[in-house]
């Protein structure tokens, strides 16, 4: 019997319809209806008022994404040049924190950054004054970078292992020094990894509520926290929460589309 590859995708397609497509329509439905189920745009009007929180979410997530990229890129390249055994060990070490519960990891950061936490105890212990760490934007960014950096390293690393050593030697042979090789060969060849790594860090970071809730305090109330309180918290409002979610989704999609557009252009420019 010939294996029809189309069939193999059916289980997931059913899953996707049930748990992605239908909920998406439900969100859309709730977003544009009131509690009685009649059409309204008042939820959207309410959601638009949350734009400052959305802007803050996007900027913190963008900063975290850039930091992840800056940290992960040289590391992923170095890692891709190691021997096979070392590469395996390294990827395990990168995944290691992910075996620990996400909440637990963030609690740990809370303990480190608190006013009476590990860092401040050390600082005062050596006679310095304590610094405000917890409940700052910086703490939120730190939490994002810490939690999401594996999602930047792994896609970068996987495209970089495909860059053959002989291609880098060829660049050198043709007269390219370190920076020319980076700009003309490594960067364009790793662009797919940059795009997917950035997406995989930015999207969860922009909608996070655990990290901002635990490390950011009331001053760093992000869009994710807002959505959470509307669905589970004190200001329960299913319709308004749906509208906010929809707004976030649209903004994320637009942001990613713009980013992808520019990175494509970059890749093409690098060709010239």
């Amino acid at each position, binding site marked *: 019997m010939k294996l029809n590859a189309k069939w193999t995708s059916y289980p997931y397609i059913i899953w996707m319809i049930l748990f992605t497509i239908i909920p998406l329509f439900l969100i859309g439905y709730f977003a544009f209806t009131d509690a009685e189920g009649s059409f309204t745009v008042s939820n959207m009007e309410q959601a638009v008022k949350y734009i400052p929180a959305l802007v803050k979410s996007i900027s913190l997530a963008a900063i975290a994404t850039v930091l992840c990229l800056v940290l992960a890129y040289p590391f992923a390249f170095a890692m891709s040049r190691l021997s096979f055994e070392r590469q395996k060990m390294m990827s395990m070490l990168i995944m290691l924190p992910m075996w620990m519960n996400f909440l637990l990891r963030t609690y740990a950061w809370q303990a480190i950054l608190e006013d009476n936490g590990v860092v401040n105890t050390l600082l005062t212990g050596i006679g310095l004054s304590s610094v405000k760490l917890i409940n700052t934007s910086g703490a939120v960014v730190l939490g994002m970078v810490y939690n999401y950096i594996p999602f930047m390293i792994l896609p970068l690393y996987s495209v970089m292992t495909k860059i*053959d050593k*002989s*291609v880098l*030697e*060829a*660049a*050198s*042979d*043709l*007269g*390219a*020094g370190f920076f*020319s090789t980076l700009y*003309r*060969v490594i960067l*364009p*060849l790793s662009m797919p990894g940059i795009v997917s790594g950035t997406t995989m860090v930015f999207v969860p970071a922009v909608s996070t509520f655990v990290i901002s809730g635990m490390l950011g305090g009331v001053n760093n109330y992000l869009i994710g926290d807002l959505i959470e309180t509307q669905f589970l918290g004190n200001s329960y409002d299913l319709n308004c929460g749906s509208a906010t979610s929809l707004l976030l989704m649209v903004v994320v999609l637009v942001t990613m589309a713009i980013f992808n557009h520019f990175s494509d252009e970059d*890749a093409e420019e*690098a*060709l*010239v």
Partner: protein
Amino acid sequence: MNQNKKVFELKKIAKSFDGDQILKGIDLDIHEKEFITLLGPSGCGKTTTLRIIGGFVTPDSGDVLFLGKKINDVPPYKRKVNTVFQKYALFPHLDVFENVAFGLRLVKTPEKEIVQRVREMLALVNLSGFESRRVDLLSGGQQQRVAIARALVNRPNVLLLDEPLGALDLKLRKEMQIELKKIQQSLGITFVYVTHDQEEALTMSDTVVVMNEGRIQQIGTPQDIYNEPANAFTASFIGESNIIPGIMHKDFLVEFAGRNYVCVDGGFAKDEPVDIVVRPEDVDIAPATSEFLCGTVKQVVFKGVHYEMHVDCNGTVWRVQSTDFTPAGATVGLKITPEDIHIMHRSVPYGGEKD
């Protein structure tokens, strides 16, 4: 010997990887306009030698001289040398034109000149019209041509080629051999070519450097290498041969296979043990009389141009090629004339305890 100016000189080059000594003292001069081939089995150090010339490997000891100047620590991107890599190593994100233009763009060549030189080069390697093709969609032979064009467009003093034809099928390989030789002659650039294929080396080269186990075994023209192998290794690696132990009684008289033969070599010590090389095509089948070394034909294989026979003479199997058919089981004489007997010092060894 080549009279042209020396481009590269390697002096007593040694190199180890992980405690494994790959090169054990390489001395080699490479001249202008020369087509020089490093020939040897895998692991003999030929590719390492090439990579030292290219700057990808720094020797542990010894010197690399370029036009008389020491360049041991000069990185590849500062050497006037370009390489055609074994697996081509084309840039997968660039089209054919941009692959070839890569080196020119790095030195900020004017766009007009880039277009002109790339076009010229692509014409030279028969790839006109392929400018905007993606390189990963080209055939192996076409990729190879792009790699050659990409290297040559920079007008290097020396082009290094690391088994460039290894991945191509036989027919394409033969065509490319002739084409490469033509390109080399028309551009007048020095080619340093690495291969393990002795036929390729003999066909293309002005000079062949036979290497084994990190040492140079012999340097010479293809004719020298084939007709006057310096030692048993060269003789066995280049072409087919019968290698028989013998004793050089005095000049022009050698004993092997239990018989005395007149030969054309001299200058050996009295009764020096030597290795005798006789090419299979140089042995003639003769009547089985006491005049000749006699033996029994064990095996006859038809090879197209000739028959190849294994003739057992007192336990030693001789390989003989003849256009005349002799049935297996026949007793024949082997006629070996003095010019066909090549005598080699036993002390110039296979693996080489030369020094």
